[in-house]
């Protein structure tokens, strides 16, 4: 077996050295009923690199890759161009095959990168501090709700209907078992957000209001008034960002008064990856830092006075606090955070702004072209790079017919809200810099045919 360096001679010598007559002697504590005589039956034996690659490549070919043709899916995962150097750098063995930097003297590479990542994320989201990452946006969102409960000592969270339905599902699952009360619902097909109504609904039990920006239907809105309403009622405003590229063009949630900002960082550096691994962003005002979940990297000095970085404030964490920890999270998403950070460094402020502007411009072009298809209209009053089309018929079968024509034409609201017939005609369309004018024309033509 090519990954196992011990020779049979080594094994014999080592068994003798430990005083065992055979390997079975070392498994003597396994109860008799659980001992197996040989390899587990019904499974194939080892295979060459060539054979395994052939098998996996055959499976990969059964998928339609996003890059194979016109592609307009978003709804929480966005396809952006990732510069070649990102993937090269994250495959440096010193990053790829290291672990959580428990020994800072020989992990300054990872630690400095995390410090830079935290700084980039905090600036992008408009907050004071950010942590070293979470699993993904959906789990970060639930952690933010729990954090708001800890801070406010109240247990009712108001979720905007514009929150991604999967994020809402995750929160509902957890709330069932923790006793948190969630007030939520499906969005309505209207041009504006539900934020004004949310501000009205805040009461003395409300721990937080959770809004998504841009929301699941692509709408963007100013959250300043909602932030003030939260503040005067003693509740926290949690903003969820699933498309961080948007923040190159529109105001950051922290800038508008959000207390906690969480997000999905997949757009930068990570890629689609069929849903994971992704990278959860988690940021907040400085006064709440001791209630944050997850790893935090901080600056310090070494015994010689040289600047260095360490994991810090770990008395919040499970390995120290056990059942009193702020979260059970341990491993986060370090390598994806690295990919995010490298991509952000390559872009810089100028590049991010240009990328965001191109996305917005391309989306406006697509919206205008698609609105020309008979029976189709754009629902949004405002959007960044994603908007909702209203079709004259249910969108879900349309998506499949478009796929038959080689166009992956967005995510139907029927897929996201299968039980809500009122949303069935909605189609969420994302348009990034990877979409060409030809792609838009092909989409419009295919949609016209399918709807005819």
């Amino acid at each position, binding site marked *: 077996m090519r990954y196992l360096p011990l020779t049979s001679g080594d094994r014999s010598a080592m068994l003798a050295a430990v005083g065992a007559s055979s390997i079975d002697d070392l498994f003597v504590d396994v109860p008799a009923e659980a001992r197996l005589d040989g390899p587990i039956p019904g499974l194939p034996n080892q295979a060459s690199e060539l054979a395994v690659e052939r098998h996996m490549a055959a499976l990969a070919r059964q998928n339609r890759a996003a890059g194979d043709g016109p592609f307009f899916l978003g709804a929480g995962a966005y396809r952006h161009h990732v510069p070649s150097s990102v993937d090269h750098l994250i495959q440096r063995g*010193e990053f790829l095959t290291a672990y959580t930097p428990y020994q800072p003297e020989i992990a300054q590479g990872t630690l400095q990168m995390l410090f830079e990542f935290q700084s980039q994320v905090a600036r992008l989201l408009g907050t004071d501090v950010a942590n070293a990452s979470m699993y993904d946006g959906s789990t970060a969102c639930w952690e933010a709700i729990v954090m708001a409960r800890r801070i406010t000592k109240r247990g009712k969270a108001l979720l905007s209907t514009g929150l991604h339905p999967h994020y809402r599902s995750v929160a509902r699952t957890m709330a069932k078992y*923790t006793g948190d009360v969630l007030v939520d619902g499906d969005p309505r097909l209207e041009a504006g957000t539900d934020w004004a109504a949310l501000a009205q609904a805040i009461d003395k039990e409300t721990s937080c209001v959770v809004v998504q920006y841009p929301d699941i239907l692509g709408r963007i809105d100013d959250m300043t008034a909602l932030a003030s309403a939260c503040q005067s009622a003693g509740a926290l405003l949690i903003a969820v960002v699933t498309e961080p590229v948007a923040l190159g063009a529109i105001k950051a949630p922290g800038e508008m008064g959000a207390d906690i900002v969480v997000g999905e960082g997949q757009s930068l550096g990570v890629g689609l990856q069929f849903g994971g691994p992704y990278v959860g962003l988690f940021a907040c005002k400085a006064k709440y830092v001791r209630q944050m979940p997850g790893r935090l990297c901080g600056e310090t000095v070494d015994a010689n006075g040289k600047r260095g970085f360490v994991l810090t404030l770990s008395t919040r964490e499970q390995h120290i606090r056990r059942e009193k920890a702020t979260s059970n999270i*341990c491993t986060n998403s370090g390598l994806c955070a690295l990919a995010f950070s490298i991509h952000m460094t390559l872009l810089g402020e100028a590049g991010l702004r240009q990328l965001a502007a191109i996305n917005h411009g391309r989306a406006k072009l697509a919206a205008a072209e698609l609105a020309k298809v008979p029976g189709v209209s754009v629902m949004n009053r405002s959007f960044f790079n994603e908007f909702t089309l209203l079709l004259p018929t249910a969108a879900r079968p349309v998506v499949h017919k478009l796929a038959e024509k080689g166009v992956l034409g967005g995510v139907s609201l029927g897929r996201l809200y299968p039980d809500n017939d009122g949303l069935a005609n909605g189609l969420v369309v994302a348009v990034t810099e990877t979409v060409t004018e030809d792609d838009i024309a092909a989409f419009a033509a295919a949609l016209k045919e399918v709807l005819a």
Partner: protein
Amino acid sequence: MTALNRAGWRPEMTAGGADDTVTFTGNRALMLEEPLIFEIGSSETTGVDFDEETPVADLGNLARSTPIGLPGLSESETVRHYTRLSRQNYAIDLGLFPLGSCTMKHNPRLNEKVARMPGFADAHPLQPQETVQGAYAVIHELAEWLVTLTGMHSVAMSPKAGAHGELCGILCIKAALEARGEDRRVLLVPESAHGTNPATAAFAGFSVEDIPATAEGRVDLAALKARLGPDVAGVMVTNPNTCGLFERDMKAISDAVHAAGGYVYCDGANFNAIVGRVRPGDLGVDAMHINLHKTFSTPHGGGGPGSGPVVLSEALAPFAPLPFVAKQADGGFRLIEEENAGEDHPETFGRMTAFHGQMGMFTRALTYILSHGADGLKQVAEDAVLNANYILRNLEDVLDAPFGFSGPCMHEALFSDKGLAEGFSTLDVAKGLIDEGYHPMTVYFPLVVHGAMLVEPTETESKAVLDQFIGALRSIALRAKNGDPALKTAPHFAPRARLDETKAARNPVLAWSEPAAAPGVPVASEVGGG
């Protein structure tokens, strides 16, 4: 950056260059210092070119009006920045990384190649199902392997890491109890458990009670039995446990817990010791997470991403989370999610994460498993256990092995700080190992042993590597016993000496901010080149 003076000397350098450890740049040959991106980048610089002019945005009052403060670097500077940073890290690719309970084994590069195939890496989680049958096939094939290797009934694939998998298993238990109409609120967890176990139990709303251990480092079966009752939802047991021992009474523990109406959660962090050789299903386990980044060698990546599928018994399978992949009669695959769960999976506890789990880890883990096969995986467990015993028996005369008498260890060897000279600690041993060119073992865990040192070599290390490591650790152990003062200030040869963690926590600096220029001190940009 260190301030420069016009003579081209750093203040601490002596004119005659007598102190050869100080250089103008702060670099020392291949050991290169690297500033922060905020100190070398600028908001105008970018390493990405676009094909078109920036269109005018019409975003009204939501348009960004203030600078974000994000530095950019050209591609050449970016590659150099991260390459320099990478060289300040220790990694498996450089040498033995015997972090106990973390299973730092070699990461095969075929796995990386496969994960990057466009059909996997460039597929969207919400694509029409007919366009991603290959992705579903990977999830299903890996699921079948995990179920067969563990002898369990089924597996939940979506948990994102080990602790998330624990949460999945515990929520299955909670849902099963609710379905039975029982309100059991206590989970029993041994003191030697990973911190994630009690944290997970609390996160899911359970209260946690300790299970005592025997003198030989295993669960005290009699004490456990005495505590079982109608308020106990179950136990969370790590097997092999964090003392590196197989829980000999595991089947009896399971039987007792089941007889008292509870469920058995097994922390599978240490599955590498038994993969292909022992099936947890044969020991009465109801739920166990598998860290794909440990046993199945998906890269640890400097702290994730992990992946934590949870294998389940028949009793807990009905409560598994959404979504999951089901194979149909025609050989195709479909997703079971909220809309069809009512028909196919009505008792599910719900969704734990937005999409399908860690697909990029599934492709790597399946590639790893297919490479090894059933025979290779069995060899993995045997070599991992043999390597750990080899370390235990070659060091127990110089380092205290508190459970050395309890029989063979499994995949990791546990030592304590007993017998080190007054004033010398486990930390000193760890830092000494750094100077010898190793990553230290896990230290101060498990908590049941004073000054614990938990050494997990894994199966991908050769005998020659182990022999050298044993020699180095013996040497350090003797230095610590004899009170060598140089050990107290180790490491001496790492990119940094010991870091001040107290300062970091007392006055947290968690993000970069522009330093206020001190009066009279020239900043680098004001200094001429010569």
